[in-house]
């Protein structure tokens, strides 16, 4: 199984001062699948995300990307190997325009960033591709706008465009619809289903309808451990999940 998975974790563990946030998790993300991580708050989803992307070093265990050990690599190395992430809290460069954000992402694999003796006009070569990506996420008209001026839903869309600009093998999206209105949620789901073609997506998501519409595989986490894993319908019907999480969510709806 580990041989087929594009991104896999074995016995992945992370301790915070006596508190075990992620507890010996095994995870296998199949190529070209959408794999959702769900679970109640504090289940360890975001910690797991930070471990997989190198933002936190694991206390134990191992992470492999396409068979290559990436455990303990710093985030910039993990990103360069093809794992792109978005952030739960929108994380942009307030002074740069939407287009400059995407150009900065496109540029990162080129080494142009080291050319302190060249003009920034050198980056104009990315304008066309950047505008394509912005059009894809519905930001074509806002290419010149400083990111700080964008509405919340637009910022989330820009996050996605930046992640896509890295042309990643694996796209990790941390709650892409968090805090969105229904309309934006629909648009985001539609967008993700469009860009997932040929890609592998790992998704942390609270909104179960989003998970149901997107995910091939769902892993339910609870207290840092894997509670259940399987296709959405199967996981949804699982009694342990209903008591732990889905029951409450359904009742709320």
């Amino acid at each position, binding site marked *: 199984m580990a041989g087929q998975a594009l991104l896999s974790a074995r016995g992945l563990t992370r301790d915070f001062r006596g508190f075990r946030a992620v507890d010996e998790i095994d995870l296998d993300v199949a190529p070209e699948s959408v794999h959702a991580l769900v679970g109640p708050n504090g289940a360890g989803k975001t910690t797991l995300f930070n471990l997989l992307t190198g933002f936190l070093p694991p206390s134990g265990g191992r992470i492999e990307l396409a068979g290559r050990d990436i455990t303990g690599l710093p985030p*910039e190395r993990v990103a360069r190997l093809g794992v792109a992430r978005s952030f739960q809290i929108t*994380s942009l*460069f307030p002074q*740069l325009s939407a287009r400059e954000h995407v150009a900065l992402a496109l540029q*990162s694999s080129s080494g142009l960033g080291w050319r302190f003796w060249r003009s920034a006009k050198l980056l104009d070569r990315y304008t066309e591709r950047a505008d394509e990506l912005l059009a894809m996420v519905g930001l074509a008209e806002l290419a010149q706008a400083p990111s700080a001026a964008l509405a919340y839903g637009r910022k989330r869309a820009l996050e996605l465009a930046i992640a896509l600009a890295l042309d990643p093998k694996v796209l990790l999206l941390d709650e892409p619809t968090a805090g969105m209105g229904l309309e934006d949620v629909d648009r985001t789901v539609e967008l993700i289903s469009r860009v997932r073609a040929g890609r592998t997506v790992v998704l942390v998501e609270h909104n179960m309808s989003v998970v149901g519409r997107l995910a091939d595989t769902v892993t339910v986490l609870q207290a840092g451990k894997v509670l259940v894993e399987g296709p959405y319908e199967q996981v949804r019907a699982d009694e342990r999940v209903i008591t732990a999480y889905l029951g409450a969510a359904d009742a709320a709806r």
Partner: protein
Amino acid sequence: MTSTVDTAADASRSTPPSGLVAVAHAPGWVRYALLAVGLAVAVWLPNGLYPAVAVDILCWALFAVAVDLLLGFTGLMSFGHAAFWGASAYVTGLVAIHAGLPFPLAVLAGALAAALLAVPIGYLAVKRTGIYFAMVTLAFAQMVYYVANEWRSVTQGENGLQGVPRSFPGLDLTDDYYFYYAILPIVLLGLAAAWRIVHSPFGRVLVGIRDNPARARALGYPVHRYKLTAFVLSGFIAGLGGGLFAVGHRFVSLDVLHWTTSGKAVIVVVLGGIGTLWGGVLGAAIVVRLEDWLSFSGFEAIGLVTGGIFVLVVVLFRRGIWGSAAALARRLALRRR
């Protein structure tokens, strides 16, 4: 303890200084006009001021721009830049005295030595941010100060390096007036280099790192290495200023390495406007001119006056003189539209 690295939440807290945008978005003709005025003032300067003061302004302009490269464009406040200014002053002085090279080569040697010194200091310092970065740079600068103080056989300790020559084949530069014009091209080159760095693909990445380091890492940018490169480039430009300062004064005293020199550089940048680049040049002109004027007026407590002005500017014009002027100009331009 750095294991929990800068996360997204950490990054979202940082608020960038806002001077940069104002200048960068000024229309083309405004920028050319400003450039023309700046060059004209630079050419006229030793006719309006004591040439020795004008020379000091040029040196400090380089120093300030070097500090702003880190403070304004990389988000790092170095409180130990005297190490590079001063190390270059000593190396420049020693090379000029012992090797008898033309002064630009001695200054180049000094600036390269400063850049070299910036490699290990920067390597250790960029792993920290904020106040910790400032403290690490200060600590290293103090170390350099004590080394220079104790290593009397080379640096002459408290007596300082005497008789640094202003040698240049075919030119007599003993008069400060002519010396000013001899160093002006070097200073303009240094300022142009800083401008180019800020407006390069590298500079774009630096601003990204300043505003959101976690995001920059997630895009695949090795943040520490970028910061280190900026630190070394800044050390080189500060060294260029320090070397010219040594030749200008024909003398290197321990003061060039003192922590108050680092502090003065930061004050000059804050006064002029963080993240504005040219604000540092303006700040240098004001501070150097003011200090010279006060020292000749027979007033003892110079620090009291410069300190008072500093407090006033920080309270009244948070963006510094250049930054506030640029913001005002932008607001007026918007209103007219």
